């Protein structure tokens, strides 16, 4: 189905407070996004930013947003019935096959697009180990909703040990890979975490798909702001989901991203969560 390329104005049908920093916005619209795809969300006279869909059943879709700056603060002020513009869906999405054993590794708000793949995983009779991590128990996303799916082993971990295991998602991932035969790892979260996931996947010779986030203008592969070195692949069009084999040759991955003027910004020593 063709994407909407001129913003389509939609009313917010529902807003759910997931925790202090994360809200889910519900829209009643047949967007038909695939898991891992994203939309450009427009706040008139403010800006427009990319967000993955966290659910889409063909009748309604959700986006789940972490409050990180001015744009998301303004979004958090909106009420049910308020209007925003939506373009999309854009990007490639996660690729699932039938009867696979999957490990999903979600850090913080990165669990949102992974949650959206659970319906398809169920339809394809996949077995899922879901590693849900956050800094602290308050920030664990979709814990109950994930639990409600059958055929899922949920592994909760927090940096401070306030819920589940004390430690990082990557430690849990390693253990699972030691214990089980896994076909595919899917991951979304802080890039420093995903870099580690990528390394572990290579170490254990397990395939992986990772979801990248970059500053975007167009969302449909023409502006060039989200391109990766040295291949020139576009996160918005060739991604945002990349096979680990491709990321092996991407200099930016886990190292730097680019601002709206195209200048490199290096990832800080940001803590894996």
């Amino acid at each position, binding site marked *: 189905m063709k994407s909407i*390329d*001129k*913003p389509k*104005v939609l009313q917010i049908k529902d807003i759910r407070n997931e925790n202090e920093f994360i809200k889910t916005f519900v829209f009643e619209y047949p967007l038909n996004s695939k898991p891992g795809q994203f939309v*450009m969300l*427009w706040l*008139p*006279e*403010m*800006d*427009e*930013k990319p967000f993955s869909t966290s659910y889409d059943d063909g009748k309604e879709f959700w986006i789940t947003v972490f409050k990180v700056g001015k744009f998301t603060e303004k979004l958090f002020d909106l009420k049910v019935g308020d*209007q925003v*513009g939506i*373009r999309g869906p854009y990007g490639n999405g996660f690729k699932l096959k039938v009867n696979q054993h999957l490990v999903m590794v979600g850090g913080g708000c990165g669990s949102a697009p992974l949650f959206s793949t659970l319906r398809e995983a169920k339809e394809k009779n996949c077995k899922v180990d879901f590693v849900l991590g956050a800094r602290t128990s308050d920030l664990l996303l979709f814990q109950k909703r994930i639990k409600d799916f059958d055929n899922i082993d949920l592994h909760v971990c927090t940096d401070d040990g306030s819920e589940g295991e004390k430690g990082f998602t990557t430690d849990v991932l390693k253990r699972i890979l030691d214990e089980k035969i896994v076909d595919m790892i899917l991951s979304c979260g802080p890039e420093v975490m995903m870099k580690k996931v990528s390394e572990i996947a290579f170490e254990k010779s397990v395939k992986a798909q990772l979801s990248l986030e970059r500053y975007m*203008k*167009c969302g*449909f*592969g*023409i*502006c*060039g*702001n989200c*391109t*990766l*070195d*040295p*291949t*020139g*692949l*576009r996160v918005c*069009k060739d991604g945002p989901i990349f096979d680990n084999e491709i990321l092996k040759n991407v200099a930016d991955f886990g190292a730097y991203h*680019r*601002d*709206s*003027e*195209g*200048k490199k910004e290096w990832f800080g020593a940001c803590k894996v969560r």
Partner: protein
Amino acid sequence: MSDLSINFCGVKFRNPLVLASGILGVTASSLKNVIRNGAGGVTTKSIWLNPHKGHPNPTMFGTEHYFINAVGLPDAGIEKAIDEIKPLIESSEDPIIVSIAGGNKQDFVDIAEKIHVVNPQILELNISCPNVEDQFGRPFACVTVDAGELVKRVKEVSKNVPLVVKLSPNVNNIAEIALECEKQGADGINMGNTFGPGLVIDIDIRKPVLHNKVGGVSGPGLKPLYVKKVWDVYSAVKIPIIGTGGILTGEDAIEMMMAGASLVGVGTAVYYRDIDVFSKMVKEISDWCERSGVENLEEIVGAAH
């Protein structure tokens, strides 16, 4: 197999399709990727001496008939160009056209002087962006004496590097402006930048969609207007032309060349046909040449006059 190569200002392009400035030109890797996808040459995003902020989003969107943008010429300045564009030019077998921009005339002279460190093969003077008018006033390309004066001053510092001036279609005296640029030393004309600015209003929000409110319009619906501008410029000057605007297919490119373009700028087509539009168009041009018995593509430049 027909020869699709074009000699433009002494630089050889293996085919006439050149990535237009502002599209996929943020990084050297991206420009390289465009070349891998079949472009005969690429143009960088306009480089400023100092970092320049663009507009917030939405900066662009497209419909079946037109594309509108107001990105606002963001760039990280000459330091980034030295980091990225210089090695690209040194390693590329295909020509890299370096586009430069500024807010006032002195800015253009300054960047034209400094840009030598990246060893540009061709310089393109972007004096026609319609999306920074609020900041800098009417584009210099819209006023004959301004365009001419800028070409003259830049030519004084740009030494032997061929200078292409990118003109605006938003004038009714394009022949006069192009002629003045030629007189003042321009080596080529890019005809041209986007139309407008235009305005699109969202009727539910009751506000303009683009953050900058207005933006330059391009896309397939405007092709006849661009072909006419190129026709007029070709009639007025002897220097070669890059015909840019509304070109989506190989047949469109051939039409543009028959109007007088030696090279054809491809930009918005990436939106309509994706990044491999270049190789698709090369094949379409090649097929047409075979069918038409054209052995050397250069022979069709200006053929419709």
